[in-house]
């Protein structure tokens, strides 16, 4: 297996981008990544996207994006795993370079979500849960995470305020990110008094509906050296599945797939949770960040709420989480999220994060997941000196 490095990253400001089409979003990010890497071609490409069929009546994204990027006839592959589409696309690109099938691979993710109404988006996103046995009866994604929040509160005594503190922290970080969709600070009181979505979750506990794309260039470490780029290696990659329906899980206050994916990534990287300096995790809802902290081994089970309250996950804390603003503030264009998490790590390694900079950032982790935890993917990256 060959060592793989991230040599280029590209993303534009995310938000409600009515003037931009699905293909424009992807191609813009891809061009930025290609320029950043300084490569003159790519051998193969991936497109992480959850549901362009429902959002834009457009499938066959491999062909569309390769055509509009002007790179026909290279192979282009669409990857779908609900909200983990981007992270799993990264893993596919990593495997293609590591396995020796291609030397330079473009991995992009994209979602164009504002072409449909809000309840249309709720319908489209609900196809990531069990359509016949969950969505048919009226559950929504905020509803599924709300039920996990209620289970976690009942089992461990997690407080409503703990959930709100995750949103406060991530908005504090996103305020400093020029590409973030919602660059505003919020308070615990504002989160708790915001519009109800699915109790106990309010609108400020939820990641937004976003148009956006993100792209990275992967190549061998050998090539990265030739390009004169700082060497940022992917040293661990793990992927796992869990039951599609939340109700089938033995523990409703846990996300097994993330634990299994993390175990594999830690083992491959030869690292343990205490070696991780900072992380970008899938805070689609505030409760998700708490559950993930426990599954990644950053805190003991049930102790995530008090850890956030103690400031352990803030910039400057023991393990800063979502220094980019996370899905909550940066936005969550579903298929792009997992790719943008890698970009957030690269920006830290390159020392570009200003007030959100993690000092001496060398080892970071990304965690991306689909549905209520039916799929999950974890990557560990290391900056080589």
């Amino acid at each position, binding site marked *: 297996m060959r060592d793989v490095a991230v040599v280029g990253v590209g993303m534009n400001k995310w938000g409600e981008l009515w003037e931009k089409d699905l293909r424009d979003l992807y191609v813009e990010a891809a061009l930025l990544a290609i320029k950043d890497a300084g490569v003159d071609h790519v051998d193969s490409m991936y497109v992480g996207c959850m549901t362009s069929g*429902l959002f834009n009546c457009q499938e066959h994204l491999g062909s569309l994006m390769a055509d509009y990027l002007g790179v026909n006839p290279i192979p282009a592959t669409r990857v779908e795993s609900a909200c983990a589409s981007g992270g799993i696309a990264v893993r596919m690109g990593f495997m293609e370079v590591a396995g020796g099938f291609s030397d330079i691979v473009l991995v992009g993710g994209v979602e164009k979500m504002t072409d*449909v*109404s*809000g*309840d*249309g988006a*709720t*319908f*489209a996103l*609900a196809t990531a849960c069990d*359509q*016949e*046995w*969950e*969505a*048919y*009866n*009226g*559950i*929504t994604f*905020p*509803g599924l995470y*709300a*039920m*996990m929040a*209620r*289970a976690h509160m*009942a089992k461990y005594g997690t407080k409503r305020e703990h959930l709100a503190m995750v949103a406060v922290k991530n908005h504090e970080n996103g305020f400093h990110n020029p590409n973030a969709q919602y660059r505003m600070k919020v308070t615990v009181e504002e989160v708790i008094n915001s*519009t*109800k*979505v*699915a*109790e*106990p*979750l309010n609108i400020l506990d939820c990641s937004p509906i976003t148009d956006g794309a993100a792209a990275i260039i992967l190549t061998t470490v050998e090539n990265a050296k030739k390009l004169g780029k700082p060497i940022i290696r992917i040293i661990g990659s793990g992927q796992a599945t869990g039951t599609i*329906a*939340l*109700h*089938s899980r033995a523990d*409703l206050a846990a996300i097994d797939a993330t634990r299994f994916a993390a175990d594999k990534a830690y083992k491959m990287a030869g690292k343990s949770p205490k070696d991780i300096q900072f992380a970008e995790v899938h805070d689609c809802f505030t409760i998700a960040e708490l559950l993930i902290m426990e599954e990644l081994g950053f805190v003991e089970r049930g102790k995530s709420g008090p850890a956030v309250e103690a400031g352990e996950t803030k910039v400057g804390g023991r393990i800063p989480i979502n220094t980019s603003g996370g899905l909550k503030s940066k936005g969550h264009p579903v298929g792009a999220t997992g790719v943008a998490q890698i970009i957030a790590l690269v920006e830290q390694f390159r020392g570009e994060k200003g007030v959100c900079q993690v000092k001496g950032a060398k080892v970071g982790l990304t965690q991306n997941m689909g549905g209520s935890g039916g799929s999950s993917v974890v990557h560990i990256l290391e900056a080589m000196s």
Partner: protein
Amino acid sequence: MSFESVTPARYARFIPQRYRLEAGYCRKCDRYFFPPRLVCSCGCEDMEIRKLPDEGKLLTYTIIHTPGSQFQDERPFAIGIVELAPGARITTQIADTPFDEIKIGMKLKVEFRKIQSVGEGGVLAYGYKVVAL
């Protein structure tokens, strides 16, 4: 949204489960699957069909204020996860129960109810909801 979440063939396929709570049962594991599956997680493919009891316990719940397009007229409504037998749980609306009386651990009874109306013609789709026992 121009997509219909329930079509006639899809609806008819699941009548045994939605009308009669028919589950799969693995004798080897003493475990139920709802809906029935072709294979148990133990690898056993010889699963029998058994009807689930129509009473169970609430494991967790939420009150939905912003539902998907098909449930706009019903909001807000309560929905939760109810365990009916070992391994057999359903995600189901909690009907006719004041929100402040809903508690984790409460006993609930399954009833046959209208779930949603489908398409421009408003064809009714049925299934199960639970009420306080």
